[in-house]
């Protein structure tokens, strides 16, 4: 490595008569620099003057062969020192500000002179020398300047207040000169040396001073002064062999909102962020230093305001993390009991709220939608997950108002996701209102309900914010109510209601209630809310809870369990009922400003789906990939073993219409997600319809692949694990499609049973066709009517329809729609009905599985056995003839027994052999065909004569061909396919396989 040289460079070193200065001068000179050795020759404390010190150093330099000149001026006459350099060598390159003195004394003893002298020598002196040199350096476009600071300045040191001031003052000077000089290649740095010079003798022990030789400092000075060094604006601690650079570190700090008054209390509250160094930055210039301030400017614009209890800016619009929950029939029934349903266990309308097998249908009381949503908020609160900026405790809040709306009747069981956000914050003067909106989504992501919970926050208002709507809503009109229901609650009502999830001891614990100033535990406001819902439904919705749409109430006063609720109702329109609830015993209004809205008709499942799953372009009446994935969700839940078995993450990407779904059968309990996921093992790209075909077993993935219709990337082998797709019940797929609104259900009172199918090409439900078949059967068997003697009413769902089989009156018939006096009513899903009729499902099992509900004469249901006696073929025939031409991709009809193809094929073979006796001789063997689904066996004896065909088996067969009926048809069409079928395992041969090469005799049958 070459030496760093300073040839031709001219350097000024102030205070170079001894110590650090002398060392700097000697080192620079030894490397070729011409040095102005400046030293006033004074004492360490600034007294006296002598030329001896500087001369000695110049002598030393010259002796060593270097060039140097002495200067005896004070640094306060800096210009003269600079002039010496210019006079001697005509140039200046380097300035080392080193001269200094000490006037150490504790601050209380420090005199003004102590202060000023230190200032003059260090600060003013450095300024004078540097200032005189500055323009020469700038003009020359080259300069290196070093200032000498001290640890005393950086950290402070007892007895050196003046010196500390001066030393850090130089750092400030250096920092700015570094910026100003950079463009002209004048680089400026500062060192904080520690060395055993005459200045440090007074503050450090002798031994240490001896160890700290100036020679350990000078090399850094020389390097900073060298032309190869591009550092500027740096600060270095150096001495005793150590060299290190310092920089500023700043805590991440805290930004207070500019829109709000910042109080000392706020500073104290944020102290750990302001003064903590967990997160830090290292600003290097003013711009970086300003960064957080610039970033905080935006907060000045806010108009929300707030106070220490409520910060509107922070809280408003905040979205709480989603919460999932689920409920089932038990939860619905418990809730209904909690709000007073079922007091008359013989009242069918109310039974439908609490008895899951009720024949007229089990339906949720719509106001239940508030329960899971509120429970979700409570569970978040328990985990400490609250919106930021809402800094009040539960003790300040009262449930002021509640709005609950459902999008469609709640299903009997559901898995829910609740998404809450702070919707509104109102300043009511003394108090505040905080409105939390909770959207509840079902498993398919469809919105099921929305709740608005208005919390009344005591003493939290007064920041001058928005007051919110002030008009009184839902005020009862000035007339007598259109209906009044008076219902006494049970003394244990609150104990029952709380089991739905509001565990507040205020509603159960007498001591707790007393502490809150109540004589005994109070009824939940939301319990009264449920009572009111029941009352309105009973009076204005014909008792059908499915017509309930929304409820809005204000909680005005408490009700004690056992008191009597009087609900006064005013009908504003067919779908809007204003009401209030009073406590009869005390004539107090408990619920005010209240209204319930009803649906004008029961909402059907919505067709609206995200674009990816059902774009507008998608023709109705078809099953889509999305339906399959929605079905798969359930399927996977029912078949957890798949995850272990398959162990693969499939990514599907669809075209026509575009979409993406991922099927994770590798992790956890498995998952079906819309969109793309990371870490898929295999990605399959294909058209939506092709996927449907594949999943329904109608299209072969391999064929799609080789036809270029399926692209596989990733682990190709993993795609073979997709077989399980074909095991999904087609009926389930159809259900999913119906749910998604793509396959319309037949409506009650729609197409007559034996009439033509619904117009417009839309597919009638399978059940309609079956009833058509049954009608044919019933009319063909008039004796049934006498034997069975029952009128069966069927209420089918998904899609909904109603049919009656009358085997009591006249010759018996089948009627579309509802009849007046059925003996028994059977409620079940369309697909379960189809399964029942095709022998795939047992009515008893459906009943005990809760899938078939009976009302009326339950025993009469046992007479349904006749359904089984109907020839499936007849039903199938009826179904085929009644079913409009369905697009290829629709659900496969639940397996109606197929008509065997083998008899026709073998009959034709028999005829062919008779016509062409030579055929037999070409084979010369007895073979048999074991045909499956439907199972038939055929013997083809080609050993002699013209050959013979007969049904049955023969132990002497040279070969047995085992084949599916469908595949036999394929084989007969083209015997060349034999090898292909054999390789695919669809043709199994026992015995002489080569006889399979000679199946030409089947050609074209």
């Amino acid at each position, binding site marked *: 490595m070459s030496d760093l040289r300073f040839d031709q460079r001219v350097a000024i070193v102030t205070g170079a008569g001894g110590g650090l200065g002398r060392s700097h001068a000697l080192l620079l000179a030894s490397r070729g620099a011409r040095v102005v050795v400046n030293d006033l020759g004074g004492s360490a404390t600034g007294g006296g003057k002598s030329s001896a010190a500087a001369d000695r150093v110049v002598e030393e330099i010259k002796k060593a062969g270097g060039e140097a000149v002495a200067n005896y001026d004070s640094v306060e006459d800096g210009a003269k020192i600079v002039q010496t350099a210019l006079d001697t060598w005509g140039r200046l390159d380097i300035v080392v500000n080193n001269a200094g003195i000490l006037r150490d004394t504790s601050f209380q003893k420090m005199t003004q002179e102590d202060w000023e002298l230190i200032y003059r020598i260090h600060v003013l002196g450095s300024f004078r020398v540097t200032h005189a040199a500055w323009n020469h350096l700038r003009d020359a476009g080259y300069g290196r300047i070093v200032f000498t600071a001290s640890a005393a300045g950086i950290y402070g040191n007892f007895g050196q207040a003046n010196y500390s001031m001066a030393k850090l003052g130089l750092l400030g000077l250096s920092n700015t000169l570094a910026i100003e000089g950079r463009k002209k290649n004048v680089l400026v740095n500062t060192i904080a040396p520690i060395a055993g010079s005459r200045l440090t003798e007074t503050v450090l022990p002798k031994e240490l001073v001896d160890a700290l030789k100036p020679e350990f400092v000078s090399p850094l000075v020389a390097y900073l002064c060298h032309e190869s060094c591009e550092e500027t604006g740096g600060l270095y601690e150096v001495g005793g062999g150590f060299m290190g650079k310092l920089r500023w570190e700043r805590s991440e700090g805290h930004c207070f909102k500019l829109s709000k008054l910042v109080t000392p209390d706020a500073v104290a509250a944020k102290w750990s962020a302001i003064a903590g160094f967990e997160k830090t930055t290292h600003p290097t210039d003013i711009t970086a230093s300003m960064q957080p301030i610039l970033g905080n400017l935006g907060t000045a614009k806010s108009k929300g305001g707030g106070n220490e209890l409520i910060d509107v800016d922070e809280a408003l619009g905040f979205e709480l993390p989603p919460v999932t929950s689920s409920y089932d029939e038990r939860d619905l029934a418990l809730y209904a009991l909690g709000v007073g349903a079922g007091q008359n266990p013989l009242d069918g309308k109310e039974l439908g709220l609490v008895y899951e097998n009720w024949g007229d249908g089990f339906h949720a009381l719509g106001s239940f939608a508030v329960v899971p949503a509120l429970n979700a908020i409570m569970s978040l609160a328990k985990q400490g997950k609250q919106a930021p900026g809402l800094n009040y405790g539960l003790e300040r809040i009262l449930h002021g108002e509640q709005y609950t709306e459902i999008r469609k009747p709640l299903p009997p069981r559901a898995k829910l996701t609740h998404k809450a956000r702070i919707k509104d914050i109102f300043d009511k003067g003394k108090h505040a209102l905080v409105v939390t909106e909770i959207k509840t989504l079902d498993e398919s992501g469809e919105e099921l309900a929305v709740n608005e919970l208005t919390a009344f926050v005591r003493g939290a208002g007064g920041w001058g914010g928005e007051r919110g709507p002030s008009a009184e809503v839902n005020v009862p009109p000035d007339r007598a109510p259109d209906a009044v229901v008076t219902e006494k609650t049970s003394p244990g009502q609150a104990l029952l209601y709380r089991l739905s999830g509001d565990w507040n001891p205020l509603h159960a614990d007498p001591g707790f209630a007393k502490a809150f100033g109540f004589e005994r535990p109070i009824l939940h406001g939301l319990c009264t809310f449920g009572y009111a819902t029941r009352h309105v439904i009973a009076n204005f919705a014909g008792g059908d809870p499915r017509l309930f749409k929304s409820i809005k109430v204000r909680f005005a006063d408490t009700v004690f369990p056992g008191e009597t609720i009087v609900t006064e109702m005013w009908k504003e329109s067919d779908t809007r009922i204003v009401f209030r609830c009073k406590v009869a015993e005390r004539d107090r209004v408990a619920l005010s400003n209240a209204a319930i809205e009803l649906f004008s008709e029961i909402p059907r499942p919505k067709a609206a789906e995200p674009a990816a799953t059902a774009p507008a372009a998608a023709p109705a009446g078809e099953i889509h990939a999305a339906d399959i994935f929605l079905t798969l969700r359930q399927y996977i839940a029912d078949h957890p073993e798949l995850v272990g078995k398959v162990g693969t993450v499939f990514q599907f990407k669809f075209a026509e219409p575009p979409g993406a779904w991922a099927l994770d059968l590798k992790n956890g309990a498995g998952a079906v997600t819309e969109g793309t996921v990371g870490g898929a093992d295999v990605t399959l790209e294909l058209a939506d319809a092709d996927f449907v075909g594949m999943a329904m077993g109608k299209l072969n993935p391999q064929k799609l692949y080789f036809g270029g219709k399926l692209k596989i990337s990733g*682990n*190709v*082998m993993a795609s*073979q694990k997709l077989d399980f797709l074909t095991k999904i019940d087609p009926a389930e797929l159809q259900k999913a499609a119906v749910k998604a609104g793509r396959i319309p259900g037949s409506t009650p009172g729609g197409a007559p049973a034996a009439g033509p199918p619904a117009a417009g090409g839309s597919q009638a439900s399978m059940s309609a066709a079956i009833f058509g078949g049954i009608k044919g059967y019933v009319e063909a068997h008039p004796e049934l009517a006498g034997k069975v003697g029952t009128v069966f009413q069927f209420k089918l769902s998904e899609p909904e329809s109603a049919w009656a089989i009358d085997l009591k009156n006249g010759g018996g018939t089948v009627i579309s729609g509802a009849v007046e006096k059925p003996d028994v009513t059977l409620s079940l899903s369309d697909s379960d009905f189809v399964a029942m009729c095709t022998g795939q499902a047992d009515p008893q099992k459906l009943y005990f599985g809760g899938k078939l509900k009976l009302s009326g004469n339950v025993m009469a249901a046992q007479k349904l056995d006749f359904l089984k006696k109907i020839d499936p073929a007849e039903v199938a025939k009826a179904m085929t003839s009644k079913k409009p031409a369905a697009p290829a991709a629709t659900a496969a009809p639940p397996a109606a027994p197929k008509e065997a193809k083998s008899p026709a094929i073998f009959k034709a073979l028999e005829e062919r052999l008779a016509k062409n006796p030579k055929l037999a001789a070409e084979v010369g063997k007895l073979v048999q065909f074991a045909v499956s689904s439907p199972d038939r066996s055929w013997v083809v004896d080609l050993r002699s004569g013209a050959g013979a065909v007969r049904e049955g088996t023969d132990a002497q067969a040279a070969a047995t061909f085992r084949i599916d009926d469908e595949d036999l048809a394929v084989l007969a069409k083209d015997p060349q396919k034999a090898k292909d079928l054999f*390789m695919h395992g669809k043709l199994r041969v026992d015995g002489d396989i*080569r006889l399979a090469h000679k199946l030409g005799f089947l050609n074209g049958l």
Partner: protein
Amino acid sequence: MGRRVNVIGVGMTKFAKPGASDDYHVMASAAGRAALEDAGVAFSEIEQAYAGYVYGDSTCGQRAVYELGLTGIPVFNVNNNCSTGSTALMLARQAVEGGLCECVIAIGFEKMEKGALGSKFTDRTNPVERHALVMSEVQGFTQAPPAAQMFGGAGREYQWKHGTKRETFAKISEKARKHAAKNPYAIFNQPLTVDEVLASDPVYDPLTRYQCCPPTCGAAAAVLCSDDFAKKHGIAKPVYIAAQAMTTDLPSSFEPKSMIKMVGYDMAAGAAKKVYEKAGLGPQDVQVVELHDCFTANELLTYEALGLCKEGEAEKFIWDGDNTYGGKFVTNPSGGLLSKGHPLGATGLAQCTELVWQLRGQAGDRQVPSAHVALQHNLGLGGACVVTMYRRD
């Protein structure tokens, strides 16, 4: 023509079910130590080591070899699917034959998981993708283990062509079990009848469960040296490698789409042809064969690929007993992959071990009488096929 390469020491562990074995480095070093002892050579004299395994992180070879000594020699980790063991053997042979080394060791080992082979790396192209595509075109994919579908499909194709009975495939398993019953190193020692084989769970027709080799853990090793080295160590009449060849897939593996060719028939036939030419000997000169019977179907195909019988005559060859003691050849006296087991990386060297024992007359109850020329066939899908002929003068 390079130098003659001698196999002076062989050794192996008793093959075991997954979960019932030692860790790989313990098995591998046990096999290596046995081979060194058999050769009478100290590990310090070994100049290079070739370590074969399929499943494991990188440098398992070193970990295993370090158990024998830290001599700082080069260790090469070898991975070539089911032909890994004989690939390591081939590299070892080349080092000695080419004059680079005097004495080297090849060690193969495998610690397998339960269940059928699958793919470990699912974020990248599967190496047997092209093979799988042939299969899917010819016969589709099913849920069966992929390897069983491939070899089973090849069996189907052979059946279709030659009318072969299911019993014929099963007969191979029966023979394998009979041979393995006399091999203390084998995983299965219980004999099976043809009926029992046929009655086992169907895997992929014509293959049943007992016609598929089991996942196995084990290790085997061989010490190879030059004539000079053998002489110096006073090793008289060592077994030597008369010829060896490796082939990889040819266009015929993929086109025309034939399952038989896809699973490596032409690779095997090509490697065998080279070996016969180089050795100046034909199949008629061979007495004992260790061949790659991962599935019964492949043993049947390999009879023809190696020229042990004519094309289309494998069925007769089997029923005539020409594949066992008293017949024309004894194939897989060790029990083969089917019954001795198939620890992927070890198999090629376990075959070598068996044949060296046979040629030295050390095979005990399963000794093939007057064996002096032996043939080894080791196949990996993906693909590679190594055929080796051993002699002892």
